[in-house]
């Protein structure tokens, strides 16, 4: 126990607990600074590129507007004035689609997540398998035998109900909440390309192609697992007493859920909502399949800037910039929520 510190200690050991020693501190800042550069440089390059005219892009790199090249607003002008509505429409679409589907997903997903934490479900394994079997049969009869799909669906449903009331009673083995939760979460494993073609046909049949509705429904389905996953754990951390006392006071389950549970889970809801919003906002593949003109979203606009002439870097940069600006703004405001909400899901998941 000596107060005299060796050189090693001076360099590598902090003086007190609130302090960081010079060498680790310097290293920390170097690394963090480097990663800041890594994170920001691509964004900087986008901004710079958005002010270049084509020849300035193709003529090799130029770094500083006003210093090594003369900035031009032509790309901004093209996106906002020339394209005008063709920019604004996808923008509004993206806003409408991502916000509504995020809200729906959060509501439906938290209902399911809540139910899975508080209500015990015991669906019989046999009836579940039977249901899937009937579904397979229905699909086959539509696709293969060319049966009209409303008929097939109705008869399939009828068949299932009949079977459930007769054979269904004998099933013993049943599933539990965790199985259901796992089933929901496992949907996230599906590669979108595997399911997007049938979804396209589905929406085409019910006449919803190229509408906001199609995208909203699909995004809701894609993001439900995440919501269920995150919210389930959030609800688990809410003490039971609250609900029980409300139930004793005569509140229905719905009232308990909407007036007690949801307000209590605000941070979790906010974080989940944001995460889902970001995912919807940036989604490309499904939007590509399901939208043509009316419901086109921004990621498509980005990809669209890759014309036969090759990528129109300058336009693309503008589109990407206007696309990320609102998300970054929201994130700056609500960042703490994201961290917390994400954590609870991940820690307990």
């Amino acid at each position: 126990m000596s107060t005299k510190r060796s050189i090693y200690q001076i360099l590598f050991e902090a003086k007190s607990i609130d302090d960081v020693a010079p060498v680790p501190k310097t290293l920390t800042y170097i690394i963090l600074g480097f990663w800041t550069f890594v994170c920001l440089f691509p964004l900087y390059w986008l901004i710079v590129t958005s002010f270049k005219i084509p020849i300035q892009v193709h003529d090799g790199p130029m770094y500083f507007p006003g210093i090594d090249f003369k900035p031009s607003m032509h790309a901004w002008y093209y996106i906002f004035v020339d394209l005008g509505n063709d920019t604004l429409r996808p923008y509004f679409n993206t806003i409408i689609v991502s916000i509504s589907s995020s809200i729906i997903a959060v509501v439906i997903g938290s209902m399911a997540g809540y139910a899975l934490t508080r209500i015990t479900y015991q669906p019989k394994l046999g009836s579940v398998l039977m249901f899937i079997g009937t579904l397979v049969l229905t699909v086959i009869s539509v696709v293969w035998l060319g049966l009209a799909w409303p008929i097939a669906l109705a008869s399939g449903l009828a068949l299932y109900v009949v079977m459930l009331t007769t054979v269904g009673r004998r099933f013993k083995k049943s599933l539990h909440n965790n199985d259901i939760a796992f089933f929901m979460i496992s949907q996230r494993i599906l590669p979108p390309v595997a399911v997007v073609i049938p979804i396209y046909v589905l929406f085409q049949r019910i006449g919803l192609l190229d509408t906001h509705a199609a995208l909203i429904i699909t995004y809701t389905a894609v993001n439900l697992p995440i919501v269920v996953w995150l919210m389930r754990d959030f609800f688990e951390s809410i003490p039971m007493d609250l609900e029980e006392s409300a139930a004793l006071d005569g509140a229905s389950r719905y009232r308990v859920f909407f007036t007690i549970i949801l307000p209590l889970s605000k941070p979790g809801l906010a974080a989940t909502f944001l995460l889902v919003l970001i995912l919807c906002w940036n989604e490309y593949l499904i939007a590509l399949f399901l939208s043509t003109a009316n419901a086109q979203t921004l990621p498509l606009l980005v990809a669209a800037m890759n014309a036969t002439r090759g990528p129109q870097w300058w336009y693309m940069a503008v589109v990407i910039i206007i696309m990320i600006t609102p998300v970054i703004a929201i994130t700056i405001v609500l960042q703490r929520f994201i961290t917390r909400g994400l954590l609870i899901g991940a820690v307990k998941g």
Partner: protein
Amino acid sequence: MKVQLKNITKRFGDVVAVNQVNLDIKEGEFLVLLGPSGCGKTTALRMIAGLESIDEGDIYIGDKRVNDVLPKYRDVAMVFQSYALYPHMTVAANIGYPLKLRGVDKTERQEAIINTARLVRLDELLDRYPKQLSGGQRQRVALARAIVRRPQVFLMDEPLSNLDAKLRGKMRAELKHLQHELGITTIYVTHDQIEAMTLAQRVAIMSQGVLQQINTPKNIYNDPDNLFVAGFIGSPTMNFLNGELEDGDFVMTGCRIKKVGKGSRENIILGIRPEDMQIIANGESQIQAMLYSVELTGDQTIVTAKLNEIDLTVREDKDYSGRIDQMVQIRVDQSKIFLFDAASGKRIRYET
């Protein structure tokens, strides 16, 4: 090893958590830092441990100034309120961890673990994980982990507060015995005065970051330095009466107690402990009050009487009986009276 705090101050933003505290802790002493929650006692303890930096003042452990010494070089051990056991380590691993960090070899470590475990009666539980233990057992693990490496100083942060009353009493006794046996300087933080009184050789009372009084438990009880200490120590708490001094007599509406001090003075608070008052049937009494409630606690009866809306608590023996709403005569043991200056809260002492 002795520990000295010289004028230490700690600020968190605008809040002064510890304000110019001076403490002198002797070698082998068991010192309790007592105070209500938020009084800065835990901060002071953490500053001794090195877990908080020191804004002003100096801390000495032994003869070394340790302001700029990292915790690991201070050779202190700390028991946390939450025990801070490592959940993924067995009891044995938890206890042995400080030794492992010091590079003690395995056989030696094993021996130390077993010895220490035996000392705190954990030898049966060495293979369990913390979550498989009861509160008291966890507490003992935390203790064992502190003991195992025989530090210069023990620091304990409300180690018993998470236990139930019965277990707390038992652990208190064990702790005291252990400390006595090991003879290691111990600084113990608590908000529980009974713990403080029973464990400490000396008690240091803190309030709002300021050290109020430091003395033996007995002296603190019998000779509080100020209003805060007087009110904080003792259960039921001391009765306080606001009034003034007239030629040595304490006067307030409906009450006059003679010869408690000297001279005349306004804004005086008179303090008297419940056990130093007595309800008398007849004879000379200083206070007349209305009986408000009578509570039998077993070996004694706590009587509350009202005097001008002020509650007076009197401790009577268990046979006392009285009717509520009846006027009673209370006699005060004048030699046990404390006088305080109402403005500063300071004790007014007279040379006798």
